[in-house]
């Protein structure tokens, strides 16, 4: 039997599970194909197929999927409902499998995470397709988890190191798939560096820690990735300002960030990115925010 090739779209889930997948499939001896970093062209591709009101992150994801169409045997799209009662995900995560199934022909490698199934359960269902035994799969899972943990620890260490450095520091609060996307968070990162601001990222902290800390800000919030994001705010008391990064029109952010911003004491900036190609507006806003930080 020929070895199968699995395509991984560089969007949404990639930023949460990317490292895990890399080591897991490496151990399983399966080749991975990644879609390229987000470009204007991919965004346009996504916008062309998605409904108008869909959020930019999802449009980008669909753009990546359309790039992978026909280039691999399977494309990996997990569906995540909830991790537990208080850690649900956005409804787009719920619909992502069926949307991809509707738009594209490439077979989908899919596992489901909800209250009764965790990541390992989901992967075990795939073992026939991947052509490995249960023992091998569990070994690969544990290996990949360990690697993922090491990377996360390294990231966290770097964050704390940055925090103790001199200079103005800004915490970027957002979902991981926005911060590290080359179209959404990329220009922001570059602009901050140009202005000699040290950026800290909410998703580089340990999620167990930030998830629990989110309670300090909001009592009833039940979206996992929003909790992980805002939980970094009480953790970073030393930063000079906070940037809330959101995509248009993100459903969760519209409520959560508004709620958090209302009780904010530090200077903050609320950035909503859309699929326009011009970045001049962004520059102006960042520069004025930097001026504000320097005065305080």
């Amino acid at each position, binding site marked *: 039997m020929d070895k199968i090739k699995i395509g991984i779209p560089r969007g949404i889930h990639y930023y949460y599970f990317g490292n895990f997948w890399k080591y897991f499939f490496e151990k399983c001896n399966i080749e991975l194909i990644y879609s390229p970093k987000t470009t204007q062209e991919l965004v346009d591709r996504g916008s062309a197929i998605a409904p108008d009101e*869909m959020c930019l992150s999802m449009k980008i994801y669909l753009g990546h999927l359309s790039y992978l169409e026909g280039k691999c045997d399977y494309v990996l799209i997990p569906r995540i409902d909830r991790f537990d009662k208080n850690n649900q995900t956005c*409804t787009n995560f*719920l*619909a992502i*499998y069926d949307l991809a199934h509707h738009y594209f022909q490439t077979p989908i490698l899919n596992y489901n995470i909800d209250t009764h199934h965790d990541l390992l359960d989901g992967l075990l269902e795939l073992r026939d397709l991947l052509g490995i035994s249960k023992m091998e799969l569990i070994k690969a899972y544990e290996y990949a988890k360990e690697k993922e943990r090491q990377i996360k620890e390294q990231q966290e260490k770097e964050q704390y190191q940055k925090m103790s450095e001199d200079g103005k520091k800004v915490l970027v609060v957002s979902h991981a798939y926005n911060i590290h996307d080359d179209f959404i968070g990329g220009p922001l990162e570059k602009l901050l560096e140009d202005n000699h601001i040290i950026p800290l990222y909410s998703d580089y902290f340990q999620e167990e820690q930030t998830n629990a800390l989110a309670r300090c800000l909001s009592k*009833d919030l039940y979206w996992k990735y929003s909790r992980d994001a805002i939980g970094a705010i009480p953790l970073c008391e030393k930063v000079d300002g906070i940037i809330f990064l959101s995509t248009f*029109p993100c*459903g969760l952010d*519209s409520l959560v960030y508004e709620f958090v911003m209302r009780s904010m004491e530090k200077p903050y900036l609320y950035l909503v990115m859309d699929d326009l190609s011009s970045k001049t507006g962004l520059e102006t806003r960042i520069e004025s925010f930097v001026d504000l930080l320097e005065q305080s």
Partner: protein
Amino acid sequence: MSKVSYPQMGSYGVPIYFLLSHILEDDIVEPPNITDATLELGSKYSPDFVCTPFKYTLGTMIESLEQGADVLIQMGGGCRYGYYHELQEKILKDLGYSFVLINLVNGGNKISISQLMKAYPLTIQKRHCLKYLYLTKKMVFYMDKIDDYIRQNRCYEQTKGSFNRLKKEMLQEMKEVHSARKLRHIYHTYMSKMKKVPRKPMTKRIRVGLIGELYTLMEPKANEDIEQLLNDYGFEVKRYTNVTYLLFEKRKKVKRYLKHFFIKYRLGADALDNIHHTEELCKKGYDGIIHMKSSFCTPEIAAMPMIEELTQKYDVPVLFFSMDTTTSQTGFLTRIEAFCDMLEMRKS
């Protein structure tokens, strides 16, 4: 003594008022009807791209607070609805009102009675409480049946407004009931009255299915009273979404939908239901489908491509509406008229 109020949605204010007035000893402030002023208030204090029910309910809450209410009740749901209460509470407190907000449904789609009791200790007997809960459930059930009947028959009435008048009278009588028997009696009387309403001869039968996001469908102000509009055109209207469906039938049906359907997973809120209803409407030979949602309603946006695919497969025209607080009525009417004309032309 506190004053209790709740957000407005369609004519469901009647059963809610009925329930609250019997199980609480406090005063109840009936929320004022939603007007343009309510909307303006609501959208003024809301975040930019939040979905529209947030603005509607926030506007009503402000108006109720102005009338002296100090306990507010908010419902939640499976999507963003579930998180409304915390932000709304914050916004209203920032505006300087003092009140208690009780959220009936938490994020997980479950009514937590223990939490409710903690926030609002009831003084009356449990048996009494259960009786009125049962009566309210029955009342909603009968109301929904009557509404269903009205939507399908109002288009043939000879004197305009006969059905609406009957429904108004029925609601008035239902407010006074104390037993299930009386309630059933009222329902049957009005059902037979409605069946006797003089009708125009049926020349052409055109049926339109109405699907979409729940609040926009059930609050006439939010959908520009589309049911009346379509009925005036002489079209029958079918709508699946109502409170009975959402609270008591949905859970069972969704499991069935997933078994024999091309959708593999639940899609959040009512998206899966709507896709299934689209197929049902197409198979039953409906002439057109109108999909309505509030703007930025995430689950419905994800459902739209699938709905489009189905309607293309069965060759049924479909019209998508995204309702916002700023939607101008003229544009809306033009689109509805064009759609209706098209349906009539297809039929002849």
